[in-house]
């Protein structure tokens, strides 16, 4: 009998009919000296699907992603870990420690080989195996060993997805992402520093409900959550279009909720669900609380040139030329959101000049 099958499934696979299965349950009830009414209860219990095993590995991380998981209100974290999945290894939450914790990981791998979901948060140092160890094992060895039997890998947080803050210049420990190191497994990236709580649980729920990897963008992120830029979905977007910007943090514009573009907002180049799903049960999101978006779901956002430096600054609202440079000038209402994002990034990086026509063409 394969380990991930319930008894009910296994019996049926061997040709035992539903009727035969119920007979078996009645016999079991009688054998256990239980009243006949218990047979359906036993049947239900036996048929109950095993909760899929999830092994969660934490490497070069700050535990912010785990904290974010616990903030999920729908699905709730308690619903997830007690009713939906079997969270068999998770440093922050598991009761067992030391050898017993490692035994839990090994047992989960053996019992569910080929079928468990591996979640990773944190980057993996490649500069020296001694830069990060668990139970004396290097992060790289533990990743490889645990990834081997995984059905799929979910890289939670920008560190696991793209290297994140340890990978920021000058990357002192040679930090790498999961997809830099594992190439033979399906990997879902769920970036963000941390990711939105319900995005973490939502991605897991998708996989558990539909049994498929959700559709991903070119950076391995589910389109359902990362398909749109924050700028395109931002409730302050109309002010951008009208050319109304906060010039500082408590001026009239800031108070009235005008666009934070000039204060460095990275919403135009950041793909995430903050402006739609929002944070902590829809309470707010960074821009709504007056702070420019840091761009935390994008690779290398730490090295993007300054959180308070305007992303792009068209030279004047009457010319047909916009300069993608950091720092000077006034912005006007330009439909940056329509641009091809790869090109946006390249231009932002290379401080290239683009024209209004480029922007409007959206390519």
């Amino acid at each position, binding site marked *: 009998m394969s380990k991930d099958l319930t008894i009910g499934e296994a019996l049926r696979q061997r040709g035992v009919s539903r009727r035969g299965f119920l007979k078996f349950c009645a016999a079991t009830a009688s054998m256990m000296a239980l009243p006949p009414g218990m047979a359906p209860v036993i049947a239900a219990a036996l048929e109950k699907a*095993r909760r899929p095993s999830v092994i969660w590995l934490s490497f070069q991380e700050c535990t*912010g992603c785990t904290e974010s998981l616990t*903030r999920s209100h729908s699905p709730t*974290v308690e619903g997830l870990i007690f009713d939906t999945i079997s969270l068999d290894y998770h440093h922050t939450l598991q009761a067992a420690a*030391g050898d017993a914790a490692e035994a839990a990981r090994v047992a989960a791998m053996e019992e569910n080989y080929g079928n468990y979901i591996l979640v990773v948060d944190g980057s993996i140092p490649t500069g020296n195996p*001694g830069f990060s*160890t668990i139970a004396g094992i290097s992060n790289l060895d533990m990743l490889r060993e645990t990834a081997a039997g995984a059905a799929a890998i979910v890289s939670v947080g920008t560190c696991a997805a793209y290297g994140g803050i340890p990978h920021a210049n000058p990357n*002192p420990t040679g930090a790498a992402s999961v997809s830099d190191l594992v190439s033979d497994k399906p990997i879902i990236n769920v970036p963000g520093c941390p990711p939105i709580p319900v995005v973490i649980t939502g991605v897991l729920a998708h996989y558990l409900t539909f049994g498929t990897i959700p559709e991903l963008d070119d950076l391995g992120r589910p389109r359902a959550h990362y398909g749109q830029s924050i700028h395109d979905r931002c409730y302050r977007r109309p002010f951008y279009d009208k050319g109304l910007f906060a010039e500082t943090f408590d001026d009239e514009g800031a108070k009235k909720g005008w666009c934070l573009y000039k204060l460095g907002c990275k919403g135009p180049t950041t793909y995430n669900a903050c402006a739609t799903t929002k944070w902590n049960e829809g309470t*707010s999101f960074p821009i709504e609380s007056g702070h420019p978006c840091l761009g935390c779901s994008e690779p290398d956002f730490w090295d993007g040139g300054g959180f308070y430096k305007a992303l792009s600054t068209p030279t004047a609202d009457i010319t047909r030329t916009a300069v993608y440079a950091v720092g000077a000038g006034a912005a006007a209402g330009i439909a940056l959101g329509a641009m091809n994002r790869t090109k946006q990034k390249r231009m932002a990086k290379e401080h290239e000049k683009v024209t209004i026509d480029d922007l409007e063409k959206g390519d």
Partner: protein
Amino acid sequence: MNERVVVDPITRIEGHLRIEAQMDGDRIAKAWSAGTMVRGIEIILRGRDPRDAWAFAQRICGVCTLVHGLASIRAVENALDYTIPPNAQLIRNLMNGAQYIHDHVMHFYHLHALDWVDVVSALNADPKATSALAQSLSSYPKSSPGYFADMQKKLKTFVEGGQLGIFAQAYWGHPAYKLPAEANLMAVAHYLEALVWQRDVAKLHTIFGGKNPHPNFLVGGVACPIDLNSDSAINAKRLAQVQEIINKMNVFVEQVYIPDLLAIAGFYKDWGSRGEGLGNFLTFGDFPEKGMDDPSSFLIPSGAILDRDLSTIRDVDMNAADEIQEYVAHSFYDYSDGKEAPLHPYDGETNLNYSGPKPPYKQLDVDNSYSWLKSPRWKGHAMEVGPLARVLMLYASGHDQTKELVTMTLNTLDVPVAALFSTLGRTAARGLETKIIGDMMQTWMNNLVANIKAGDTKTFNEKLWEPSSWPRQARGVGFMEAPRGGLAHWIVIEDETIKNYQAVVPSTWNAGPRDQNGQPGAYEAALQDNHTLHDPKQPIEILRTIHSFDPCIACAVHVTDPDGEELIKVKVR
């Protein structure tokens, strides 16, 4: 029997911690605490815009998710002599206060409780008796027999499903678990309640900082403007939400956390006589009423207590070169003048040098370097920081509410004052200060509302925002009391960028290795204080004392290096 007991990973903490304990019979003779992960965030900070530093520093830790952000903006503001508006000060106090309450409750239920609470034993509880017990302790409404019967049923279904998930392989049934089944069931119910509660009260950070974890901060004030006539600023609706959260926090602390803490502690009084260790306590002070420049307005005073002597509070100078210093004798770092002499954080210098055993390894070489943590010392003394240090400092400085709470606790548990200096005392102190901070939350909220009523809506000081207005060179220290203890960031600014950045954090003080003189850190000393292991294969006693400190190891590991090129020069054995 001179066995070496190794616990790695220490779970139910933040970060990667390893404990090795040398046994003498069934007693711990010597213990070593090792941080096993390094990222190098201070190296990454160098050359950046000081106004951006908070975001990097905040990612030191996602559990105490705002403290490094706050320490960082304070460091920049201290360096630039940058004052912030009173409203910004109050909002920061509210955010840090909320962090304490959130953190301490989660620590108690989700990180620490399972050292004292046997989940499996809860299956044998009588729900009616559990209800009677809960109602005898508190007026919390969720305490009916039906409620506990439901909880027990849920738990039963879970356990009988055969997949124990996060509860698998734990030491259930260990004789060190002393609670009656009913107390276990009550605590398990509150474990789940606290999980629900915490995600609601975290919203205070979201209102002011846009998200949690990792809410946003701003040098010069706060980013959320106040405007009662705007739908996009802190307005009456937002303030009402904040008030609601404060109420919710205080109800849980008063009706669930404190009663559970005292009830559980009553069964573990023997833990009031072990696990103290150093007897030296340090605070930097925090929660200013009038700004960081006026320490006399701090709720928590700054100071040092040596050898349990509560009659003498010594002054602490964050800038004095001979007071706060870091040793690297047993850390995986080199100093250019050798590993012996300590350095003040302004002159802090570190070269990564992993000299430990090549992974996979069984045992660390504790005679040489064995941790990614340094060993901070105050005037050469190893010090404990955290809730116990703060409660002792408040008590010693005559804070009335603290004295009342400490007396109430000692009387309720019927233990002597000396029981404060212990694993139990540390865990109790965390609860008591949660109550103190919870009460202050209301005061700060009232003051914020009063300011707005009086027409003051200022939240940001624009004066020094532009780097061109800064001196060419500046340096400063941003200090605070984080939930886990005194935290300070030292920054050196030159030509509008960061020249040097150093964080000396609570868990470095507590979890750091031995220093040049062989003095153990606080964890090590605590484990060497009267610990016997019932079964070395199930070292629950080690977990109890280590968890009483609430370790935060990602915080504790930090590195700076004045010569960037040296970083990749790593010796591998």
